[in-house]
């Protein structure tokens, strides 16, 4: 696909808005439809698109493999860690109330954090899965590269 | 916990011996010596308990509780002590004999043989000293499993097939009948202890008593009650020392011993007599006695003939229990001792004949007696004891059993016993008779050639046991005083 100039230009134009939309969905889930999962999928799709058009090796230069793998775990740990923080603050696991001055404030922060955790994990896992499939295709990338 | 150190030791020593046997696996002389010494020490340990038990003590030991109210526990009582004495005493002789037999035949895997032999003895003593049904059951199964490698020893297809039959029938009956009987007893009474006078009285409706007894009687497959007797002839594929000890003494006697224990200590003879729960068993035992004798007559294979003879003789003990009178229990207990001695003589002779001539068929033995006079003389004495003719010990047990049939008003059974003795005469005594009085069978011209007696170690033990049967005739009171302590209906007479 390296030769499809139109495709590459269009992609470059379209990917930033997709990412932006993803972030919007991530942080606007409180009010409208959407949340961490949907945002994660959208952000993953943006990078998948990038990978499809520019090739996996280039995608891996943008997002190193170590980074993707670490984010997979980091998202989960952020979620689970939020819960652990509530425990350390004397509440039950995943009780966000102690995070803020008022319980409602705490809920806001807590939900923000866990949704972020979901988003990070979903985006990185989806991307990792895509790369894993794509890398299996002949003439894509070599094992050592990731 | 333990009253007498000899009690745990008599069970443990054979196991330790087994360990040593395993360690000395590559040094046959040490290994065999260890086996022999172990047998002697074990016998001494068991014998050590005798005076105390005679004096009325009941040494006991309890390890741990397995179920509420049921522990892995031991308790030495007269019947068990007698069984343990016989098993451990004959182990010494059999080991002696086995050393001669195994070496003469050049058998392989002798270490495995002595190892499992030791485990089997330990299990048999465990059965003898069990304080409750569950402990007994555990050692009963251990005995089955530890003798399996002995039966399958040769590893041929035939041996494996025979061993499979052995295992399936013994484990099958014990799991399918004996185990539910035990569970039922436990469910009904809340205990499994052997108590004088039995434990089921008041817990079991009399109508169910025959059913429970049937589960026990068929569950104790080692007693070889028909129709679950097939394992015994099948087990004859084993080397002869195995047949001698296990299928004349340890295994089969464990069966009828359990039968007596259940009759006396679980049901109680009074209860059996009152409810008539064992009447059917009297007839089944009688049938087994006769049928097995008749089958034995048709067998040309010497060991097979002896095996069916054993099936028949075992049912004497079952009969003694089922008659539910004291003389029956006495006769049964005595039969355990007398038959053990007599039958082991016969088996050892059969093995001696095999070692010397490689002959296994009765019809091939004509005239052999003149070549092997000691072996066949011992055989003849053993046979007399089995038949019950004085001056051999067997006469006493037959006497008490006949008395019991009269006590129980079962005159028909008296006739059965007499008929069986007659059959015994025919199929047992005919063997030494042929050997001594018929012309030599071998090839027409050269007869048996230069054939002589088997090696000393194969001849001496049967001669000793044969003498033992005679000694027991004159000293039967020793056994009598021991087994008279068994608590049965009406106390001592």
């Amino acid at each position: 696909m390296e030769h499809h100039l139109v495709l590459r230009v269009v992609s470059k134009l379209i990917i930033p808005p997709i990412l932006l939309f993803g972030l919007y969905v991530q942080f606007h889930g409180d009010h409208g439809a959407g949340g961490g999962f949907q945002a994660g999928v959208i952000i993953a799709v943006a990078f998948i698109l990038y990978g499809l058009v520019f090739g996996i090796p280039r995608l891996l230069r943008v997002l190193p493999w170590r980074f993707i793998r670490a984010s997979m775990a980091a998202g989960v740990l952020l979620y689970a860690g939020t819960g652990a923080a509530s425990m350390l603050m004397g509440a039950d696991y995943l009780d966000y109330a102690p995070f803020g001055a008022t319980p409602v404030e705490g809920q806001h922060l807590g939900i923000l954090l866990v949704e972020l955790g979901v988003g990070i994990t979903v985006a990185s896992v989806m991307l990792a899965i895509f790369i894993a499939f794509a890398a299996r295709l002949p003439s894509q990338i070599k094992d050592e590269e990731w | 916990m333990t009253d007498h150190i000899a009690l745990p030791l008599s069970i443990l020593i054979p196991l330790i011996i087994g360990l040593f046997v395993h360690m000395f696996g590559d040094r046959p002389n040490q290994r065999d010596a260890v086996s022999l010494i172990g047998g002697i020490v074990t016998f001494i340990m068991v014998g050590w308990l005798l005076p105390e038990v005679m004096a009325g003590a009941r040494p006991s030991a309890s390890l741990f509780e397995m179920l509420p109210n049921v522990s892995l526990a031991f308790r030495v009582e007269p019947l068990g002590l007698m069984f343990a004495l016989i098993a451990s005493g004959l182990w010494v002789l059999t080991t002696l004999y086995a050393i001669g037999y195994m070496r003469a035949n050049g058998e392989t895997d002798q270490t495995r043989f002595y190892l499992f032999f030791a485990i089997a003895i330990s299990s048999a003593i465990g059965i003898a000293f069990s304080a409750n049904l569950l402990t007994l059951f555990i050692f009963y199964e251990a005995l089955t499993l530890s003798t399996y490698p002995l039966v399958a020893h040769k590893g041929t297809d035939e041996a494996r097939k025979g061993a499979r039959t052995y295992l399936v029938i013994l484990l099958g009956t014990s799991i399918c009948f004996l185990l539910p009987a035990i569970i039922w007893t436990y469910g009904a009474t809340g205990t499994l202890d052997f108590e004088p006078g039995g434990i089921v009285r008041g817990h079991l409706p009399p109508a169910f008593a025959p059913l429970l007894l049937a589960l026990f009687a068929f569950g104790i497959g080692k007693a070889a009650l028909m129709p679950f007797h097939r394992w015994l002839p099948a087990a004859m594929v084993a080397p002869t020392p195995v047949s001698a000890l296990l299928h004349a003494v340890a295994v089969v006697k464990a069966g009828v011993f359990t039968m007596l224990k259940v009759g006396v200590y679980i049901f109680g003879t009074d209860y059996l007599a009152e409810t008539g729960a064992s009447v059917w068993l009297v007839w089944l035992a009688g049938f087994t006695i006769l049928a097995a004798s008749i089958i034995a007559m048709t067998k040309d294979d010497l060991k097979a003939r002896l095996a069916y003879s054993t099936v028949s003789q075992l049912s004497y003990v079952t009969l003694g229990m089922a008659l539910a009178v004291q003389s029956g229990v006495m006769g049964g207990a005595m039969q355990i001792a007398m038959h053990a001695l007599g039958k082991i003589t016969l088996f050892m002779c059969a093995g001696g004949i095999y070692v010397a001539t490689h002959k296994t068929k009765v019809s091939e033995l004509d005239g052999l007696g003149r070549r092997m006079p000691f072996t066949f003389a011992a055989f003849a004495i053993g046979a007399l004891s089995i038949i019950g003719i004085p001056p051999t010990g067997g006469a006493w047990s037959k006497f008490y059993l006949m008395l019991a049939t009269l006590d129980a008003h079962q005159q028909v059974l008296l006739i059965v016993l007499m008929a069986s003795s007659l059959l015994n005469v025919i199929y047992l005594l005919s063997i030494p008779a042929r050997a001594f009085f018929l012309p030599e069978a071998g090839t027409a011209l050269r007869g048996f050639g230069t054939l002589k007696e088997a090696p000393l170690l194969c001849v001496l033990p049967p001669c000793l046991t044969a003498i033992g049967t005679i000694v027991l005739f004159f000293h039967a009171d020793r056994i009598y005083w021991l087994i008279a302590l068994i608590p049965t209906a009406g106390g001592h007479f």
Partner: protein
Amino acid sequence: MIMTLIDLALILALLATAVMMIRLRNLFAMVMLAGVFSLLSASLFVALDAVDVAFTEAAVGGGISTVLMLGALALTARHEAPIRRNQLVPLGVTIATGAALLYGTADLPLFGDPAAPVHTHVAPYYLATAPKEIGIDNFVTAILASYRGFDTLGETMVVFTAGVAVLFLLRSARRSRGEVSGPRDDAPDARSGKV
């Protein structure tokens, strides 16, 4: 009424798609239809007031799932082989299950009935208290992230597990050790190094 008609049309379209998917042997076309199926069901979710679900179904079914399916097709096969197996047993199993389900639906509360237990027991609590206790407008998010936040942790763990699983399967060497094509005896040679 119009809603009902739209519902009906969508459902019929779903059915038609599903039936087409049974029949199609071209797997690329089938995957495309699977995407269509997802988008149709997403529309139906919208009609049933489940906008979040619709969004997710569209993103997953229409997006990720299709991409993965296509990727898998590129690595496996493009056409389904002719069917050799007996179809009657599967048909019987399916019909029996379906019959059981249909039997079970008879006592279900009517569709949309506000008096159904579903709407009267736990749900009203969320609707009544979420604005106060959580302070966000989207009830779905409130329940998802807070009331049943632990389920969502589990859900994230499922995604994570899938990631671990796929990486484990697809990052390992291309061929199994000891595999050769054609008939062979199993196991022992796998370690002997002969192959």
